[in-house]
């Protein structure tokens, strides 16, 4: 089988400016932290970020000027650290477009892409300003005559997912919650896995139910120990509360956030990885 292992640099390099990138994980958990840092270091521009509920990933990429649009249902650090200051500032100043979704409509858009159909009907959205704001159409059901909102397909150019274990062929094992990672991997044109550990894939044959990402969907696999950091990665490590608190403080100010990024994201990867 094909050995899909590569370096983080080489995995991220082919992503063009303007790409639509789906990021795995949810709020503070199992986001692809190392890959997000590499996007920043490589100076990607004009990205559209797809996520149900984002936090540091969206916030940092906005601060670093990588982002043109965010298609997400929620961006914030939940109760521990509150709102995402750089994302806020970028949207409030008109630099970044908030393509606001309900989390369920991100899922619907991914499902349409996965199923090769142009739109996906969804229950709900009634009484919300979102459909008008986002241009989500409704259709009349030809069977019952009821109106239903339909969400256009949302096909990421790239999905980046951090998993606990992967083999060289790109099978990815997720321990615990999968979030929308499997949907993202199915919907995307190209899948990049970063993994805490590269393991012998023969081990997966004993428990294939735990292998969320089948290798044939994967384009590149990167060995990335602590690769979710500063997100949590069950059961290996929790989110880095000190780091995130420092970032959120810095992110409130453009100069401070630039300095933070220069010192802590552009710093040698080894130094970052020990957190």
């Amino acid at each position: 089988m094909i050995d899909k292992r590569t370096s983080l640099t080489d995995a991220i390099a082919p992503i063009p400016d303007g790409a639509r990138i789906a990021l795995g994980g949810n709020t503070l958990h199992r986001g692809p932290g190392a890959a997000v840092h590499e996007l920043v270091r490589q100076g990607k521009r004009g990205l559209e970020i797809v996520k149900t509920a984002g936090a540091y990933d969206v916030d940092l990429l906005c601060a670093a000027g990588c982002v043109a649009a965010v298609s997400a249902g929620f961006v914030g650090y939940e109760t521990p650290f509150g709102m995402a200051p750089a994302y806020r500032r970028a949207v409030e100043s008109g630099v970044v477009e908030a393509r606001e979704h309900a989390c369920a409509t991100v899922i619907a858009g991914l499902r349409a892409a996965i199923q090769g159909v142009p739109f996906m009907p969804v229950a709900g959205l009634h009484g919300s300003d979102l459909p008008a704001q986002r241009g989500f159409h409704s259709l009349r059901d030809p069977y019952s005559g009821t109106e239903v909102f339909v969400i256009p397909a949302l096909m990421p150019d790239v999905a980046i997912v951090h998993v606990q274990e992967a083999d060289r062929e790109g099978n990815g094992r997720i321990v615990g919650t999968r979030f929308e990672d499997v949907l993202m991997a199915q919907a995307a044109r190209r899948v990049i896995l970063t993994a805490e550990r590269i393991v012998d894939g023969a081990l997966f044959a004993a428990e294939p139910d735990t292998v969320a990402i089948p290798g044939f969907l994967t384009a590149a696999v990167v060995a990335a120990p602590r690769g979710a950091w500063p997100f949590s990665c069950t059961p290996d490590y929790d989110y880095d509360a000190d780091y995130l608190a420092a970032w959120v403080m810095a992110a409130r100010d453009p100069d401070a956030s630039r300095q933070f990024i220069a010192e802590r994201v552009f710093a040698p990867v080894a130094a970052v990885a020990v957190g």
Partner: protein
Amino acid sequence: MESPGSILPWDMMAVAMARLLKSGETVFHGVASPLPMVAILLAKHLHAPELTYLNITGAIDAAPLRLPLSTVDPALLRGTRSLVTLADLFDLSARGRLDVAFLSGVQIDGEGRINLSAIGSYERPTVRLPGGAGSAMLMPTARRVILWRTRHDPRTFVDRLDFVTASGNVDRVVTPLGVFVRIDGRLHVESLHTGVAPEVFREATGFAVEVGPDTAVTPPPSAAELAMLRAIDPDGVARSEFA
């Protein structure tokens, strides 16, 4: 037992929210939801042992060893016997099988509609808010929506939302000052928490409400409720929402 005068707002809210849940119901909370997390576990340990507790981790009836500040935290997976996905949970609500969803709003209007999107103009907002997460889908599809909000002031309970993020099946709204119930599409004051004067509640609410000396008082947390609350949430995670 602590004296009524010492009722802490997070305790009162958690208890008031827990009491709204009935055994046998299927209950969901999303991100950034410490109070619902605590309230659900409290209800499950008190009067509603057969609640089905769902959250974004995909765990069913998890029994966390410690309560996390993040309500998507892997700590909430402990003890689950199956793993579903957030998509599965939205689907459950979409097909009318989710009994209760806990949701919140930075702005809430007199119809119980919420704004979690933007303050000011939508395109160039004064404040870009986090977004409604699942609200726009859950609020019209869950059988009952319980809103909670730790701030009760006229900037929160407004006559007119800057943007309607979601609208739907709101049943109750729990705040530090009292409980609203939604009847015929409008929020009405159901009860004031102990020590909250009617005029304080009225002035804190940006839309018109009927409240006066005859308005009911929320029963204060009982000794049993408080004891179980302390046992479930020894670190005061519920209080973190007031930070």
